[in-house]
């Protein structure tokens, strides 16, 4: 598959630095098409799933999910350039890894270097990119481990324990451990639990950042499942997979980015 125009996602929670980078990118790489501008980590991850850009520029400190959290989820499937205001301890790691980093305010000369690195990486002659649906393999194992470690250091509120959903005239309290799965329903999120289902206003992408990721697995841009309720992952045909659930008749789709969660042992 060839694209006429390379695409990029740019994420920074502050508007002016984001616009500064975009402006500098337009100078450094006029052909590059910015398909998504994200204001926080949850939007960035959602936009990555929606647009599958060729590369990402991620600010490290963002609310919801940090740039490191987003990079960890991308798992090397797209080259990531980190953008940060100050070195922190992370820089040493990026020096060693396959990803590049830029310091804010972004300097034209340094950006040009990053751009040529990314262009070399995206060129057809470089290392083959993983086939769709295959396990993320591009990031060096050391880098991936480091991203895991850094992600654990970010301060965030503890995982949600209870959800409040309006059902008719009552507000029902649903414990997260009762939830079977969450599903995006236009501007709402549908919660399916043992006793029924309910709608909440929090978008799925925001909910994702508040759930215990050991228990709740995102399997599709619009589906998060409690893995304890999954009975089987069924490969329907090339590229298509769905989940069957314990004691339930409906199936849940698994998009190709998440199929590597279910690879057998």
């Amino acid at each position, binding site marked *: 598959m060839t694209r006429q125009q390379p695409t990029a996602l740019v994420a920074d*929670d*502050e*508007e*002016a*630095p984001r*616009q*500064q980078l975009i*402006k500098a990118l337009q100078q450094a790489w006029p052909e590059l098409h910015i398909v998504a501008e994200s204001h*926080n980590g*949850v939007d960035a991850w959602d936009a990555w799933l929606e647009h599958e850009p060729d590369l990402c520029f991620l600010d490290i*400190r963002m*609310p*919801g999910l940090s740039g490191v959290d987003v990079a960890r989820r991308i798992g090397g499937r797209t080259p990531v350039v980190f953008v940060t*205001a*100050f*070195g922190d301890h992370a820089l040493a790691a990026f020096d060693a890894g396959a990803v590049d980093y830029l*310091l*804010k*305010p*972004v300097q034209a000369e340094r950006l040009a270097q990053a751009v040529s690195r990314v262009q070399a990486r995206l060129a057809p002659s470089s290392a083959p990119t993983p086939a769709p649906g295959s396990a993320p393999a591009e990031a060096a194992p050391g880098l991936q481990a480091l991203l895991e470690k850094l992600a654990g250091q970010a*301060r*965030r*509120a*503890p995982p949600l324990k209870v959800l409040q959903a309006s059902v008719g005239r009552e507000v029902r309290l649903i414990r997260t451990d009762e939830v079977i799965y969450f599903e995006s329903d236009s501007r709402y999120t549908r919660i399916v639990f043992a006793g029924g289902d309910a709608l909440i206003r929090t978008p799925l992408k*925001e909910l994702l950042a508040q759930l215990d990721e050991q228990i709740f697995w995102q399997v599709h841009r619009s589906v998060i499942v409690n893995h304890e309720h999954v009975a089987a992952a069924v490969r329907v045909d090339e590229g298509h997979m769905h989940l069957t659930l314990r004691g339930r008749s409906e199936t849940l789709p698994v998009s190709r980015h998440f199929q590597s969660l279910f690879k057998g042992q």
Partner: protein
Amino acid sequence: VALAGQLMAAQIQPHFLFNSLASLQHWVQTQDPRAAPMLEALTGFLRATLPLFNRPALTLGEELQAVRSYLQVMQARLGDRLRLTVQVPDSLHALVLPPGLMLTLVENAVEHGVLQSLVGADLLVVGHAKADGFVLQVLDSGPGLAADHRDGVGLVNSRARLAQAWGSEATLQLSNRSEGGCAATLTLPLRAMQTLNR
């Protein structure tokens, strides 16, 4: 050399400085009218902050100047993500504090409260007198303290300076608010209201 020492002592957060410069650079390049006030606020912040840490103590009024210029910079950068209320009666401006204490509490509330919230947050700086002393509070409506919260460098230093100045008569407590977010509550003894010996 003196300035370098002051910069070290002031512990100006590099993230704050470079993120502010990134916004400033963009606004200068695009001739945005926000550039001039931003530069003014940033200069005001540096001027107010640098001498702060060279002194053993200063008044709340002086400290609030540094706090205000910091918040002006953040307000310019964050727009309506930062919903700010400062309500400290003038009668408290003569309180004597270890330098940088209020600034540290406000910086923490912005960094961990406002900046970590997807929808932005309220930030309140309030103070009042009570029978046996004074209370100063920095409140935010962000995600609150994590279960495994530990004090960062800024807070550890603040507590040490506070203990040095007032012993056990002063307290600094961090807690989660019932309505969500974090509260930093500083209590000072009556004798904190005194004339500064210069």
